[in-house]
């Protein structure tokens, strides 16, 4: 009980961590109740306001308007939902699949381990974005395919990380002890090995969310992700290009949103690493 409280307190002692948490909270709120937060919730979709077209930032439109007259600030808030949902689902599924594969491959080793790792290696032979681009291009543009592509290209990374961790933990004396006592395989995998991998996974998934948001932004930017008129940061960036350099706000704010979101995840990941790692080492020693 108290270790968790200690960890949480330690997290809050890091200034960067607090900032990150604030930004992330705003993002989550924006993702859950965008309509309440946005001043012009109608602009999430396909409204057209030709009279307010491409207006510079003003008190009425904090970030200006786009080429359809929509309020960019509201669209940014709408974009938060798309980004977090898209990337959350993709990262989550990749995590689940990858962890499972890694556990099995690492625990049993042998030909199953080899096979699974070889398959992972093939997917990792290309940078994630390249393969994701090809997959979405082949399947057809759209959010669902983007999620699929991101998940499919991300899980091998997890399986390799988990595999390596499992291999090293397997050698620990307490695993041998559990085996000697006759503990079942599933129990060992999930109750003994998994808890030791969890901190590493948490840290990496936080940083991974940041990376996924960037990759998703690239997909939308080249037109393979979210399709108009959905509010999406990458998509808005791409739409803005035709109206530059006059409508500078149109390119600035979506990009800034991407930056802040990714930065928040990265900072949170860093703080988590500081909080969890030394604690981990200490508690391992004590047991």
């Amino acid at each position, binding site marked *: 009980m108290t270790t968790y409280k200690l960890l949480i307190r330690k997290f809050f002692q890091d200034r960067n961590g607090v900032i990150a948490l604030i930004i992330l909270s705003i993002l989550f709120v924006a993702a859950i109740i965008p309509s309440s937060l946005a001043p012009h919730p109608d602009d999430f979709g396909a409204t057209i306001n030709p009279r307010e077209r491409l207006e510079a930032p003003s008190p009425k439109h904090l970030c200006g308007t786009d080429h359809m007259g929509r309020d960019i600030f509201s669209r940014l808030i709408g974009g938060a939902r798309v980004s977090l949902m898209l990337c959350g689902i993709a990262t989550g599924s990749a995590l689940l699949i990858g962890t499972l594969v890694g556990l099995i491959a690492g625990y049993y080793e042998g030909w199953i381990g080899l096979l699974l790792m*070889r398959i992972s*290696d*093939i*997917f990792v*032979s*290309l*940078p*994630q*974005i*390249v*393969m994701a*681009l*090809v*997959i979405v*291009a*082949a*399947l*057809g543009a759209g959010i669902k395919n983007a999620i699929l592509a991101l998940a499919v290209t991300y899980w091998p990374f997890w399986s390799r990380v988990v595999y390596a961790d499992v291999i090293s933990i397997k050698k620990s004396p307490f695993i041998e002890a559990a085996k000697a006592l006759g503990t079942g395989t599933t129990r060992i995998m999930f109750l003994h090995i998994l808890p030791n991998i969890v901190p590493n996974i948490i840290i990496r998934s936080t940083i991974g969310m*940041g990376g996924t948001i*960037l990759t998703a*932004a*690239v997909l939308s*930017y*080249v*037109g*393979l992700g979210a399709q108009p008129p959905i509010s999406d940061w*990458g998509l808005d*960036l791409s739409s803005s*290009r035709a109206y*530059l*350099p006059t409508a*500078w706000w149109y*390119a*600035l704010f*979506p*990009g800034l949103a*991407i*930056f802040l979101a*990714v*930065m928040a995840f*990265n*900072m949170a990941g*860093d703080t988590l690493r500081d909080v969890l790692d030394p604690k981990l080492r200490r508690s391992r020693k004590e047991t």
Partner: protein
Amino acid sequence: MRIIRMVMARLFLLIPTLLGLVTIMFFLTYCLPADPVSVAAGPLATLEQKAKIRKLYGFDRPIYVQYIHYVKGIVLAGDFGQSLYTHRQISHDIIQRLPATLELSLCSLCMGALLGIVLGVYSAIHKNSIVDNLIRGITIAGISLASFWVAIELQLTFSSALDILPLVGRIDRDLESLRHITGFYLIDSILMLNFQALLSALSHLVLPGIALALVPLGTIARFARAGMIGVMERTYIQYERAMGVTQRLVIWKYALKNALVGTMAQIGLLFGYVLASTFVIEKIFRWPGIGAYALDSILFLDYKAVFAVSLWAGVVYSIGGLLGDIGLILIDPREVTE
């Protein structure tokens, strides 16, 4: 000696991986909804025209025949087929565009890495100072920024607003007709003693270079910093200090080399990252490299070209990892003895 053996082994392992890659690509592009022929022919094509195209590009043969034909072509003749888009040999397209991408990528990577090392070391020495926090802010921003957004903003600021740097392209329009010896404009202009061209080439490299260099800079700076902080505690550093080795040597020679051991593994990943970034960055700056070509091929579903650029991406990614491992062996003598 060990290096050569390692390189051979890795290149050897690369073959099945690439084969697996092509297999997956084939499966993806042929067994899924979008019809390659329709894409190639365009929306207004008649059935006859489509049939013609199907025969011309070999789409009428069974998949496994196409597959074998394709692989044979590569292995025996280096023939990657013909692009549906440019109607030229893909291998020709790639080779022609290679120097542009290499020049841009290598310059960005090197600049980013060198600056990253310097910043990382500085940051570590002045740990927890204002400078350290500033550098750490810069480095985390570096890895959080979307490179294509930075590219756009750089264009807006330095080209449109301030007009001190060129907007697109590799070199000024009127200097384009220069004789190309290597294809690397920096080298060629020096060889030709054409300093106007050199200046032009350099100024065109700045903006895309910065956009590409941010992530390498941030990553390497962070790893160098962490590495240095760990190394400075070590006994051998204390010993060197105790025996009066000069401070500059202690930090930049003795500590740094140890700190870089951890950074080497990142180089492979950074190669992959820079390569992937060139896809969009080259498009934005109209840089005539493989990246822009690759992006176009993917968006137009120019299948053969997509396979070719995927293979290219796979090879570069592997080479990056290999270089990282070689670097590790070069730095750390403990890696050499088995």
